């Protein structure tokens, strides 16, 4: 089975490398990272937080929007597209198991995504480091950001795979992917803020709200990285509202891990019901 997973992952990787869209995503990520690193950080100057720390805080916010989007766009077509183009029957007539197909495709996509993120953040962070210097802590934060952004992307790759396995049409899958992105990255936070304001100070704000916030992998990612950075005042918006929450940051990573496992399991279950 490992050989099957490897073969499919290598194929997805190869297709990804030849896909202009993936190249575009990488360039986009790099461009945004550079803009944030050199323009976004300018007004802060040399205040108490180091230049690299501030850059990392900006990249964290960027990742919350861009990484789920890239991941969903990378994966929404993976099964639906094969179904539509008619390559699925051939694949599923071979001895490969459906779980190996999902696992292989997932790993291939995560590898492509990891490359894009590492290139984007690595070049931007590396340039800041070279020009302004940074402490060992800063470098650790950059590595942490890159690794957790890949984990966040993996969660959304798995979610995108569920979407792709649940429909035969690429178009429907694309619409679903955009809807999921809007909900996870924009609407969910807005809804939570609304709830928080209407509930006011009380049990909701102290006990339920933090967990609801954590339940969203994008928010979990943001909380983890910003709390690890310890920038305090830089954390604004909903992350600021979650300041002083009482769970250890590692729980946030656990949430992302749970999302990956649960989504992959669901994707396999959904794919098992597909009749090619």
């Amino acid at each position, binding site marked *: 089975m490992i*050989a*099957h997973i*490897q*073969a*499919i992952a290598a*194929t997805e990787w*190869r*297709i990804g490398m*030849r*896909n202009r869209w993936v190249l575009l995503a990488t360039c986009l990520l790099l461009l945004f990272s550079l803009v944030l690193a050199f323009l976004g950080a300018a007004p802060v100057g040399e205040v108490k937080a180091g230049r690299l720390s501030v850059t990392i805080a900006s990249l964290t916010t960027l990742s919350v929007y861009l990484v789920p989007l890239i991941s969903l766009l990378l994966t929404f077509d993976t099964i639906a597209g094969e179904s539509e*183009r*008619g*390559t699925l*029957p*051939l*694949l*599923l*007539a*071979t*001895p*490969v198991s459906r779980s190996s197909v999902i696992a292989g495709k997932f790993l291939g996509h995560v590898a492509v995504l990891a490359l894009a993120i590492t290139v984007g953040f690595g070049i931007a962070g590396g340039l800041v480091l070279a020009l302004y210097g940074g402490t060992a802590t800063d470098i650790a934060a950059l590595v942490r950001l890159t690794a957790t952004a890949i984990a966040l992307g993996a969660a959304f790759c798995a979610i995108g795979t569920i979407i792709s396995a649940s429909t035969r049409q690429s178009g429907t899958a694309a619409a679903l992917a955009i809807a999921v992105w809007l909900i996870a990255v924009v609407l969910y936070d807005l809804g939570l803020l609304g709830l928080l304001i209407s509930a006011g100070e009380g049990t909701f704000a102290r006990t339920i709200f933090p967990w609801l916030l954590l339940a969203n992998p994008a928010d979990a990612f943001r909380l983890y990285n910003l709390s690890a950075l310890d920038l305090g005042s830089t954390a604004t918006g909903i992350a600021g509202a979650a300041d002083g929450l009482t769970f250890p940051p590692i729980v946030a990573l656990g949430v992302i891990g749970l999302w990956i496992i649960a989504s992959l399991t669901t994707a396999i279950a959904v794919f098992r019901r597909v*009749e*090619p």
Partner: protein
Amino acid sequence: MNDVLLDIRGVTKRFGAVRALDDVSLQLRAGERLALLGHNGAGKTTLFRAILGFIAPDSGSLSIAGHAPGVLQARRTIAFLPENVAFPKALTGREVIALFARLKGEPVSAADDAMARVGLADAADRRSGTYSKGMRQRLGLAQALLGRPRLLVLDEPTSGLDPLSRNDLYAILAEISQSGAAILLSSHSLTEVEAETDRVSIMRSGRVVADASLRSLHQDAGLPIRIRVKASDETIGEVSGTLGGTRLNGASLELLCPASDKMARLAAISRLGEKVIDVDISTPSLDDVYRHFSARDGREDRQ
């Protein structure tokens, strides 16, 4: 018999109100070549999907070399070439076949052999997206050849191919069947598969309406032989009086008779001696036989 590779018994599959398969039974033995014929919508692809385990029948049973459809051993037994085969366009032909070799547990070197066998060695490093329909079909066949399958299932392998590529394809299939593999292929045309199969099954509206060798299919159809007799203007009256039949234009007449009466009718004609100028005999063509089975009271069935 233990060399039955494919055993289909009483399989029925409905899609809503449509009976795509209606009590279908078929057996296929090692080394045998069976062509499954039928119009569009007759149920050929549905039957293949059931054989591959993609869909479960509503009733009846299928067995592939003793295994249930879709289980690992069944998938190792079968190689499949779908109708309108497609591949990831960004991959080269060699990469596509190498992927299938790995999925089938074959060494990657088998990919090159398979590409050479279908005549794609020169195009192996081009992206499959640039291949013509015939090349795609051959790539699909290369994939099917990997791993010495015991049963080849090919859904309309020649549709859209020019006669030359069609002959190439049948030549490769003949080689495979000589090595002992069973072949099940579907087609629209009985004439085309005539020389290429041992047996034909004709499907109509989900049912198998004929399953026999070509020779017995002719007999089962019981289509009449057509004899045309040409006489002169003076003799046509007498000839027609003796033989019966229908007058055609001028001095010709047409006789329809069952195959068993052929010699008796010819003897009667030759007794007329010089009064007959010419005789033309036409036995029913394969297309006639196919039309007979695949369209017989077809309208009532369709509703």
